[in-house]
Structure formats: structure tokens, C-alpha cells
């Protein structure tokens, strides 16, 4: 590890921290339906869209009404995207002349983008037409992110409101989040990216003549615009197959730093939005601290593992001074690559600037761990916040009992109904990830897709299902995922990981909203102090860690312990 490496990391973290308050305050205004900085620009569009929807559909909804609207909206998004992908061959905006996408792949990709996963079982520049990229994928990049943020707003309102069964209106929330947060943010970011050298064009490719005189066709397209929303919305689906390791998606160390900032910014800032809306910003800072502690811990381990180099390669005479450089871009190095890997899996982004497959066992273990902890530190836009609040509810329940009261979080009593729903949500992750992994581990069809045997192959499998269920979308690239088995099961995993999780969480929000908000007394333990922060960290690690420890032991931990022996598979 080097001082320069740490300086790069601290610089980006400082940028993220600096944007928490202004961005958090802005989003609180957006959720509250107030006038914002962007109102002069987008106000008329907003009014026009909402007027077109009709006044009758814009009243406050119950949690169930809200959730049904969200499901309907996402179902429509799925159908639209599936249709575009299948029909791209006959639709305009196809200068490359690509054929329609195969059914399984289209199914997988449509679910993938609707659920904010953006798992790519395809190579973008060789499969998707410009229309598919812009009207299909990029649109869902906006809408899946807006959906997540709207759901976070519902969870916050659950805590903030007192004795009301209304949690807001989905159509209003999704419209406002898109117009006031994601759209302006993406436009600004895309322009900065263009200035920093990322292409933005409708040309399909340019031809270049290499030094040897060979003719090379270099794929191009509207990259900068898709790059911006892919990061801001923690989507992660790259324009190119190599994702952010591709020089057109991520040309320099500066764009790399900016990309990491962009994928962390909204999720961290939402904690402040939460604090403001519940009327106590300290509550938001406590949640932010929990996220920062776990994120930093994983970052230290990953950077340490990558900076040390691979002893097996060192023994063959490779210079270890730059760290483990296999699968990494020289312009980023081990610090920025480890940071990107940790940030992209701590959120639900899943874009990569290096190949996680080639990380050292512990370096690759950290992204896997972060996904399995539920992507809540800080997690995807919106989904991270409501995910960590569910954990906070479980924490408060146990801790509250320990001080001799029916547990309360922010004045809301945590009772049987909330526990039932919280446990239901918590079950989705291990059931889906471990269930599919265990079946795949015994299925020859599935095993044929693995590039490696032994513990590393197991990690590839675990990672694929974790990434899908967690709606992350990054891959341990050794897995050939475009087979009917993986397209189908990963698609189901993505669906369960998003909607199987979200429905009970929304029910919790609805149940909390309907409760009166009790005032705190000396008998209620404070949920903004270091004790609570430490406790939530412990619950996340113990609850998440215990579920997956045996699988980890056979995967990355075994692989790590095997390195000194030189045993390979």
C-alpha cells in the first residue's frame, strides 16, 4: 500500500462526504414535493406529465397501493424493454445492423435492467443497437434508480409520519426523482465526462490504421450519457463489454475518481435526507457512520490484498511492487482498482474498472462479502437506505429488549408484524443465493460454464448468484453466463432479490407509518450514538457473516489459505 494510493482514496471519500449535506437536503425537498433548484428548468415538464396522468391517480396511496403501482410500472418497463431487444433488428437506430436479441438473453437483460441489476450476459458493443442502448437500457437505468429512491422515500415517511396509512404517491415520486435528481445530475455529469474525453456520438464506429498498417474498427456510440446515469443510479451496465475498464468509458484516473464519487454520492446523501425528514439529522449521520465503517474495513482488506502482489507470480519472477496487476488497468493501479471494486459492490452498481476474477482471494472476497451483506453500506440508490433501515429495525428490537422496553426506533414501536416482515425480507438473500448455488454446484450443465475448478470456481458461482440477487450486476468474469440455465436462474434471482425483498419492506414502511410516533424518554436508548452505530455494525456482520460463513470457508477463505502451498486446481 502506498501513501499516494491512500491519498487518491481519501480524496474521493472527502468529495463524497462534502456532497452529503447539499445533495441530501435537495432530495428531502424533492420527496417533500417542495420547490427545488431545478424547478425553473423542469417544473413545466413535471406539471405537464402529472397533468397527463390525471389528478385522480395522484392522491396519497397506502403502502399496498404504492407497491402495486410500482410493480405495474416495472412490469410495463420489462415488457417494453423485452420488446425493444427482441425487435431491434427491424427498429431504427441500428447502424451496426445487429439482429434481434435471443429470447433467453432478452429475458435476462430485461429483468436485469428493470431491477437495477444491470447484469450483462452480453457484450454491449457487439449485441445492442443504439436504440436498444438509449431507449431501452438507458431509460431503465433512470427508471429503476428512480423506483429505488421512491421506495426509500416511503420507508423514510414510515418513520416520519404519525398515525397515517398514506405513504405518498408513486407516480409523483418517480416523476420528481427523475426530473429533479437523476436527469439534471446525469446531464451535468455527462458533460463533464465529455470534457474529460469520453465519447458521445451517434456514429457506430471509426476506422483507424494501426502502426503495423492494419485497419482497426473501433466501436463508438453515446457513451458519456449512459456512463453518467449508470453510475449516479448505481446501475452499472456498461456501454462496452469491458465496462469501466474500457478506455472510452473511463479514460483517466480523474474520470475513475469521478465515477467512484458518482456511484457513492446519492446513496450516502440519502442518509442525510432520512435524518432531515425524521427531524433529527443525527439519526442520518449514525446510519452514514455504520456504512462508512464497514465500507472502510473492506476497503483496507481489499487494497492490502491487492497491493501485496501474487506470491505465485512473484515466484515466477514478476515484480510485485505495483501489487497484483493481473486483470487491472495500468492507468488505475491497485489502489484505484481495489477502491472501485469495493465501491461498486458496496453499492448495487456492479460496473467494474478491473476484473474481480483476477483479484487475490481476499481482494475478491471483499466484493463478494459486501454483496452478501445485502449491499447496504451504502447500497444502491434507495435500496441501500431501506435495506440498512430494516437491519436497524432488527438491531433496535434486540437492543431495545435489553434496556427493558418494547423496542422503539424513532418513536415507532417495533412489534411482531415488523419482525415478521423484516425476517421475511432477510430470508430472500440466503434462500436465493445459497439455494441456486447449491443446485448449480451439483448440476453438470451449470458447472460447464465455470472457467476454474476448486475454490475459485465455487467463488465464481457464489458471486454470480449473489450479484444477481443483490441486484449488483458485477461478475467474477470466469463464468460464461449466457446459457439458458444461467440466463433463467439468474433472471429469477434478480427478480426475487428486488421484488421479493421490496414487498415486505414496503409493508414494514406502511405498518410503521400507521403507528403513532412516541416521544423519546430517558428509558429509550439513543439511536444516534456510537453504541448504536457499533451495534448495527455488529448485527450486519454477524447476521450476514453467519449465513455465508461455511460457503466462504470453502471458497475464498480456502483459496487464500491454499496460496502458500502453491496448490492449484
Amino acid at each position, binding site marked *: 500500500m502506498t501513501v499516494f494510493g491512500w491519498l487518491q482514496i481519501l480524496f474521493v471519500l472527502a468529495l463524497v462526504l462534502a456532497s452529503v449535506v447539499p445533495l441530501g437536503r435537495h432530495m428531502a425537498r424533492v420527496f417533500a414535493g417542495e420547490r427545488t433548484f431545478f424547478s425553473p428548468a423542469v417544473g413545466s415538464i413535471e406539471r405537464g406529465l402529472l397533468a397527463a396522468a390525471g389528478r385522480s391517480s395522484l392522491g396519497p396511496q397506502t403502502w399496498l397501493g404504492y407497491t402495486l403501482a410500482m410493480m405495474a410500472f416495472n412490469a410495463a418497463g420489462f415488457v417494453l424493454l423485452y420488446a425493444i431487444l427482441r425487435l431491434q433488428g427491424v427498429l431504427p437506430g441500428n447502424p451496426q445492423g445487429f439482429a434481434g436479441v435471443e429470447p433467453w438473453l432478452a429475458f435476462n437483460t430485461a429483468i436485469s435492467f428493470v431491477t437495477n441489476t444491470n447484469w450483462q450476459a452480453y457484450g454491449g458493443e457487439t449485441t445492442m443497437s443504439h436504440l436498444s442502448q438509449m431507449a431501452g437500457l438507458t431509460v431503465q437505468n433512470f427508471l429503476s434508480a428512480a423506483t429505488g429512491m421512491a421506495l426509500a422515500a416511503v420507508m423514510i415517511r414510515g418513520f416520519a409520519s*404519525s398515525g397515517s396509512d398514506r405513504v405518498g404517491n408513486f407516480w409523483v415520486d418517480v416523476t420528481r426523482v427523475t426530473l429533479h435528481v437523476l436527469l439534471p445530475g446525469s446531464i451535468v455529469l455527462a458533460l463533464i465526462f465529455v470534457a474529460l474525453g469520453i465519447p458521445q456520438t451517434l456514429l457506430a464506429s471509426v476506422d483507424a490504421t494501426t502502426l503495423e498498417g492494419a485497419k482497426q474498427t473501433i466501436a463508438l456510440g453515446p457513451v458519456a450519457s449512459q456512463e453518467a446515469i449508470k453510475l449516479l443510479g448505481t446501475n452499472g451496465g456498461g456501454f462496452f463489454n469491458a465496462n469501466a475498464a474500457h478506455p472510452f468509458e473511463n479514460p483517466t484516473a480523474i474520470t475513475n475518481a469521478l465515477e467512484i464519487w458518482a456511484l457513492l454520492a446519492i446513496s450516502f446523501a440519502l442518509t442525510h435526507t432520512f435524518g432531515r425528514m425524521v427531524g433529527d439529522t443525527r439519526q442520518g449521520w449514525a446510519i452514514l457512520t455504520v456504512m462508512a465503517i464497514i465500507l472502510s474495513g473492506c476497503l483496507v482488506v481489499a487494497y492490502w490484498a491487492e497491493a501485496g502482489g501474487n506470491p505465485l507470480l512473484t515466484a515466477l519472477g514478476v515484480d510485485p511492487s505495483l501489487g497484483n496487476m493481473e486483470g487491472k488497468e495500468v492507468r488505475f493501479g491497485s489502489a484505484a482498482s481495489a477502491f472501485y471494486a469495493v465501491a461498486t459492490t458496496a453499492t448495487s452498481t456492479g460496473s467494474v474498472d478491473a476484473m474481480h476474477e483476477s483479484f487475490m482471494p481476499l481482494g475478491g472476497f471483499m466484493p463478494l462479502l459486501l454483496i452478501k451483506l445485502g449491499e447496504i453500506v451504502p447500497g444502491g440508490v434507495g435500496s441501500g437506505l431501506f435495506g440498512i433501515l430494516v437491519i436497524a429495525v*432488527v438491531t433496535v*428490537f*434486540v*437492543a*431495545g*429488549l*435489553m*434496556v*427493558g*422496553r*418494547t423496542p422503539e426506533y424513532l*418513536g415507532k414501536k*417495533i*412489534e*411482531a408484524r*415488523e*419482525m*415478521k416482515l423484516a*425476517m421475511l425480507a*432477510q*430470508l430472500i438473500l*440466503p434462500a436465493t443465493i*445459497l*439455494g441456486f*448455488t*447449491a443446485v448449480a*454446484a*451439483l448440476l453438470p450443465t451449470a*458447472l460447464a460454464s465455470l472457467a476454474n475448478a*476448486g*475454490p475459485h*470456481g*465455487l467463488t465464481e458461482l457464489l458471486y454470480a448468484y449473489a450479484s444477481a440477487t443483490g441486484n449488483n450486476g458485477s461478475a467474477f468474469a470466469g463464468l460464461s453466463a449466457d446459457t439458458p440455465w444461467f440466463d433463467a436462474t439468474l433472471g429469477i434471482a434478480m427478480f426475487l432479490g428486488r421484488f421479493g425483498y421490496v414487498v415486505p419492506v414496503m409493508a414494514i414502511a406502511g405498518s410503521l407509518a400507521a403507528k*403513532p*410516533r*412516541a*416521544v423519546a*424518554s*430517558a*428509558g*429509550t*436508548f439513543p439511536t444516534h*450514538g456510537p*453504541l448504536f452505530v457499533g*451495534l448495527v455494525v*455488529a448485527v450486519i456482520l*454477524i447476521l450476514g457473516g*453467519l*449465513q*455465508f*460463513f*461455511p*460457503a466462504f*470457508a*470453502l471458497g475464498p477463505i*480456502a483459496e487464500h*489459505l*491454499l496460496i502458500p*502451498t502453491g496448490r492449484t486446481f
Partner: protein
Amino acid sequence: MSHHPIAAAPSLFDRGILTRATFDAFLKLDPRRLVRNPVIFVTEVVALVVTLVFAEDVVTGSGAPAFDGQIAAWLWFTVLFANFAEAVAEGRGKAQADALRKTRSDTLAKRLLFDDPEDSAHSVVSSLELELDDLVLVEAGDVIPADGEVVRGVASVNESAITGESAPVIRESGGDRSAVTGGTTVLSDRIVVRITAAPGSTFIDRMIALVEGAERQKTPNELALSILLSGLTLIFLITVVTLWGIAGYSGATVTVPVLIALLVTLIPTTIGGLLSAIGIAGMDRLIRFNVIATSGRAVEAAGDVDTLLLDKTGTITFGNRLATEFLPVPGITAEAFAEAALVASHADETPEGRSIVALANGHHGVVEPAGVEGASFVPFTAQTRLSGADFAGRSIRKGAVDAVLRHVGIGLDRAPAAFRDAVDRIARAGGTPLAVCEAGRLIGAIHLKDVVKPDIKERFAELRAMGIRTVMVTGDNPVTAAAIASEAGVDDFIAEATPQDKLAYIRSEQRHGRLIAMCGDGTNDAPALAQADVGVAMQSGTQAAREAGNMVDLDSNPTKLIEVVAIGKQLLMTRGSLTTFSIANDVAKYFAIVPALFVATYPELGALDVMGLASPESAILSAVIFNALIIVALIPLALKGIAYRPVGAAALLRRNLLVYGVGGLALPFVGIKAIDLLVAALHLA
């Protein structure tokens, strides 16, 4: 103040109870009963599976019968230990119920023939034949046949059968002391009682049912915790079942007993096994405090109380006002006034009267003039509102200021200025002024004061530290109420309170999301008792009050509300702390079992075996044995409850996290290692 528990509380490990509990532990293996406790039910099912595997080993001569057999045995022990914990907790209640049941034996009742309390013609019937609204005659020496309300007469009643207190109490028709309880004995006089409870649903029947736990249902919080525990059990079930496939990929062979051992050590058997014992023991602690809760829900609610409504009289102050100061008008010496007050009160048996005598005797050193016994005492009447004495030609009267002024025929404005000042000062200090006149002339005032109980201020400070507000309820005027409130250190007060005011106050607090506890005894308290989240009715109170509350205090001591709150908190804390302990234990168990499972496949995973256990089999067996024994080890803690200290929530959480969280992480490392040494030494695995 001492109280006598209903039945001598059995010691924690009474021989009789232990024997009965051991027997019950086997009866409770019935899966239909065990299914109510999902964690232990799962343990029983897998114990059965391992037993079948063991049988197969023995029959086919394959596998590892010695190892599988031991695992099966310890899994059964785990279930039995959990059953035993519950049975011990129930056993203590059963012993108390037996003592109560003796008082319920069939008695004879004198049922009046005509529905007229004045007509004492009656026939003798069994108490079991009584119906609601029957009238029965109960005379000295008779046992009251069933719960009822005195409609005629007054009697002294021995209620020791239910309260343990042998001093008789007065029960009379009308007013707040009209309720009588079946099974208690009339000592003197005769009363006519209207039966208010059918046989089988009397107060004693309800008490028996409650202490036996027959009516026990899961309380809301217990339910929420059970859901958490079931959820964790399901999650670990997924972890272990899928491990079969994942281990198969890795080329590791794991047998069913080993996977089951991992499952049972991971699921929260410790708290799962002790959960119902904790709940039963909580009710039991209340009963030993002579408080009967009508449901476990009420005990839990007590732990959550935010606001206590306390009646001033009897709770915050001694029931009576006491004379603390003599304030003669100018021209009357202190001694002369003290002597006049003494003479006027000499034959006055009220507490106020006796306190005047004591003050004159003690503080002023005045002794009774000779022959005062012969004075003619003028008793207090509702008309004159004066009392006093005529003695040796002197005529002395004392009473409320307005009554005395009317007696001497002047208005307050014409009373001496010093007297007016004295009256004013007394009122402002929260006292009651008593005027004294002699021969038609005002001679001074006596300061009667509500004396605040000596340690009550500290109690309220404790409550404040627990996060509980105290509100004093009094019929006094606001000035007096404010003075007493500040002296006692309560957070708020309701002056000139009517029952409607109390009800309104409770409702407004509840609207703000607060939980309220109160106690009361009168019929007019009933609506407020019913509205409060915790309503403690006094055993001495009316039937209506006892029906409205969700707890009955057999000692009729309103300060006990504070202990009730502490018991409720203790119950929740014990659950929370043992849950934390149970989950924290899992970390060490993983470090014991996971390397043992896979070390044959990847010898390098031996690095995770931080405890250095003797062999893989010994590691697994030791973890299972630890998991079973810890339940037994924690039974005393579950029954006694963990100590509650009023130190504020953050400090309490820090302490309990340190003991049960950090302790729960560390202890199993030591315990499993110790068991492993023993297992290896005995060549068990």
C-alpha cells in the same frame, strides 16, 4: 413495610419441584405441545433423524455408531433441558396454586329465599349452586361462599387466604369497601352479599389459573421475539441444507449427523429453550410481590410505562394530615394556645387530633391539665364541621377556618391580621389551616400538613432515571397541590382532580404515544383503570375497580406500582440479553465446527481451528454438548431475571452488551475447549 406472600415462595431449586419438572420434561416431548416452540421443535425433529441414522449404523454395522449415538443423545438432552426449564418455571406456580386451591374447597352458603336484603330467611345450599345476583347471608365465623358485593351491613373480614395479611379488614355496604372475595372469612357481625361471580370464575379461580399458567398465551413481545428466532432458524436451515450441495462440489463428504450438529448449534436453542420459562418466571415474580396480573401482556406493558399517575394520599403523602405548627394570634402565648389545642383534641381519636396532642406534648412540653378526662367532648358533625371540648368552664372549638369564623360570628376580613397571614402562609405551603377558638374568640391557627413520605423523592428520581414521568393526582386546590408536588419531586400534578380529569389526562398522554400506569380502588376510578395501559386495582377496592384493572395488588399498597414497572422491565431485559448471548455464541461454534467439517478436504482450513481441538469428531461433539449444557446453566438466570438498575437506557445497554454480548462471544470458546479436553481424555470421540 412487609408483605406476606400468598404461599411461601418455593426456593429456586425446591426438591419437589425439581422431581416433578424432570417428569414433566419428558411429557413435554409430545410434538403437539412442542410445535408451539419452533426452535426446540426443529431440534426434536432432527434429534429423531440422528437417532434413526444411529439405528441404521447399528443395524447395518456401517457409519460411526459411537459418534452418531452420542450426537443423538445430546440432541435429546437439548430438548429435555429446554422442557425442564419450562417445567421448573411452571412448577413454582403450581405449588402456589395448590396452596390457593385449599381455600376454594366447597363451602355452604346461606342463600336468602327472597330477593330482599332485609329479610334474612334463607336456605343452606352448596356454594357451587350459587348463581349470579343471588343474595347470601354471611355471619361471624362463616366463609364467604363466592365473590360478591356487600349490600347490607358491615363486618370485619379475615382475607389472609388471599393476601397473606392476617389483620382483619372492614367490609361494608356502599362506598369503596364493599367487595368481598370468596374463600375469606367473616370474623364479626353479619352481612348480606350479592354474588357477582359464578362458581369457577371467581377471583381465586382466576388467580389459580393465572399462577398455574393455564391461561398463558404468548404476549405480543414474546411473539415478536419468537418470530425473530424462527426466522433465524429458517436462515440457518437454508445455510446448512445448501451446504450439502456446496460441500459436494468441493469434494467434502459431510454426513447427516454432522450437518444436523451444525444446524442445532447455530439455531438459537439457548433463548428458544428458555423463552417461555422467562415469561412464566416474570408472572411468578409479580405474584411473590403479591400482585396478580390478569395477563402477561400487562406485565410487559408495565416495562414500557412512560407515565405513572399516583394518587397523592397514601402514595406520596401519609394518608393523614399531621399538625406541625401552632400559630396563636397576638396576645395568646404559645403555651396557652398549645394547652387549648390539647384540651380540644384530647378525646379526638382522628389522626389529626392525635397529632395535635403529640405536637403539644412533645414540641411544646405541655401536659394535660388534671381532670381533663372528665371533659365533655364535642364530636365533629357534618353540620357544625367543628369539634372540641367543654372543660372546667372553658369552651374550646377547632375546625375549618370558615366554620370557626362562622362559629365566632365574624368574616375573614375582620379576623386579626396575624391570623389572616398565618392562614395564607399555611395554604401556600401546601398545608391545611385549622382555626381554634375559645369562648367565642379566635385564638389562633394550627398548621396541618400533608407529610410527604420520607424516601419518596429518591424513588421519583429513580423513576426519572428510568425515563418515567410521575404525575400526582389530588383533590387539593392548585396552590396546595403545587407545594406538595415540588416537595415530593413529581414531574407534574393534576389538582382538584375528578375521575373525568384523570381519564382525560390518560387519553391525552396516550394520544402522544405514551403508556400510562395508575392505581385506584374506587368505583369512580374504574373507567380510568380500564383506559390506562397498566391499571393496578387495590384488593381492598370495589369489585368494579378490580374488574377494570389488569392487575390486582393484594396488599393494597399503591407505591408498589414502581416495583411492578421494574419487574416488567426485568422480564424484557432477560429476554433481550439471552437472545444476544445466544446469537453471539454462534461465532465460536463456527470456529469449532467449520474447520472440523472441511479439514479433510482442505487441510489448510485447520488454520481456522483457533481453539486447537483434539479431533474433528471431538470438536463437533464438544460444540453440541456445550450447546445443551448452556441451557441448564442459564435456568437460574432465566428464572431470577437479570438485575435491573435505574441508570438510564444507554448505560444499561452498554452494561448488558458487555456482559451478554461480549461475554456471549468469549464464553463458548472457553467452554467448548474445556469440554473438548474432557471428551478427548475420556476417549468419547
